[in-house]
């Protein structure tokens, strides 16, 4: 499968990854090779087969809408690389 450099750039942008020129070239070759191999699935007649997401057929589990103890705000903020007064610091977004 031929993958254009533009496709690689679009996918990298979607994945929020920045690739160098060399990385782009390498990924272009590797993805093409891997996707060619994935085409093996085209041999299968899958029209009437339903997809499987989970093997044991779990259904959604719900709980009562009650307040439970959770992490303290300071604890969560501490994990963030930058935080100030119990808030996580991010660049200006609006």
């Amino acid at each position, binding site marked *: 499968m031929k993958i254009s450099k533009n*496709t*690689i750039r*679009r*996918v*990298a942008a*979607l*994945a*929020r*990854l*920045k*690739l160098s020129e060399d*990385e782009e070239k390498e*990924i272009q070759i*590797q*993805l093409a*090779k*891997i*996707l060619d*191999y*994935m085409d*093996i*699935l*085209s*041999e*299968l007649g*899958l029209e009437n*087969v*339903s*997809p*499987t*997401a*989970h*093997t*044991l057929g*779990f259904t*959604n*589990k719900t*709980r009562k809408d009650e307040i439970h103890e959770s*992490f303290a705000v300071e*604890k*969560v903020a*501490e*994990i*963030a*690389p*930058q935080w100030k007064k119990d808030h*996580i610091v*991010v*660049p*200006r*977004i609006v």
Partner: protein
Amino acid sequence: MGLNEYTIEQLRPLLKGGEVIPMDIIRDLGQAIEKDNQHALPLNTYVSFDIDHISKGIASFDNRETLLLGIPIAVKDIINVVGTKTTCASKILQDYVSPYDATAITYLRQNGGIPAGKLNMDEFAMGSTNENSAFGVVRNPYNREKIPGGSSGGAASAVAGGLAVAALGSDTGGSIRQPASMCAVFGIKPTYGRVSRYGLVAYASSFDQIGPVTKTVMDGALLLEAISGYDTKDSTSAEERTPRFSSNIGRAIKDVRIGVPEEYFGEGLDEEVRKNVEKGISILKDAGAIIKPIHLTYTKYAIATYYIIATAEASSNLARFEGIRYGTRFVDTEELIELYEENRSRGFGDEVKRRILLGTFTLSSGYYDAYYLKAQKARTLICEDFKGAFKEVDIIVTPVSPVPAWDIGKMVNDPLQMYLADVYTVPVNLAGLPAASVNCGKTSEGLPVGLQIIANHFREDEIFRTARIVEEVVR
């Protein structure tokens, strides 16, 4: 022999009788790790082994009635242990300290296990060699020029090398069984849902399972008993009772029907691996099992199916690492998207980036039906393959890896080749089945070969008694 060389089974009476205290084991482990670090080619199995922190865990421990009685258990560095770093062997999490215990760790503690040290691995569990770690390669104790397998390579190498009594690993596509096979230890991936995934950093959520890596089959059974059980914090956790797996060990396998799938013995299987696996099968036959040739016709589609689904799930799961809520922020930028891109690009290694890109591609508009949906349908066929087989047999046995441990660096530049080596392990994850690797011999070069034992959903008991038969003879 230092206490680090002992098994759980051997340590239990000593701890119960008070002849040994947990701190004695920790001390011997610390010395063994220290000694190995002096080796010209250290095994490099731990990302961290903080004696002070582990001692604190022991200080509050005083219960001689539990299952594990204070035995230290090493933990793959993808499972959260409160107050310790969980790096996933990635730069992006190099400073992340867990604020909570994974449920498997909570249960482990309740059963008297002490989390002791965090083990090296392939970054975010992506890899079959342990070469993809931000903290250096792990080596195989049977030959230090060789890979230990992966992604739980630190776990297998530490247990085989006497640097851990036992360990917890995780298995998404073979990450417990393949390194266990290459390092001659026992490793079991439980049925999907048997062990809670809460606190296991997610790679591919519909496959991931935590499981034991141990010196013996009995230790595997004891450790699995200690970590299993329903958990309300994991919506895919199964409401199943945890059996006493250890009580199945020693039971005969007379008239147990064992299936040998022809598709697992074809092209690409190393001759020496084949011979050892056949020897393992003959041991089971001699013990009275009925060996039946079977077919798993969709096996050849498993790699493509697995890598499409796993990378798609990974691309979604790893979106959370962006240098904002947790992890490391390498650079600050004025613009938000740039902040994501800069930090993710600096934080992730090559294989992780490759899998994120592959998964993003197959989920992207225009390709979803051609890849992701198709793979989910192929997954149905592979599940049905096993369902059909388990109507005829109780157990399925196969090789774990088509080849024994290879030289470090040999396949680094050929990701597809590396993926293809997972051919015998990924079908099990696609079907959510339990499966283990037990050593069945060594090649002429002295490299271990594992026998894979697969059972039906929630029938780990069958695996333990079958594995024990092989272990008794091969030892």
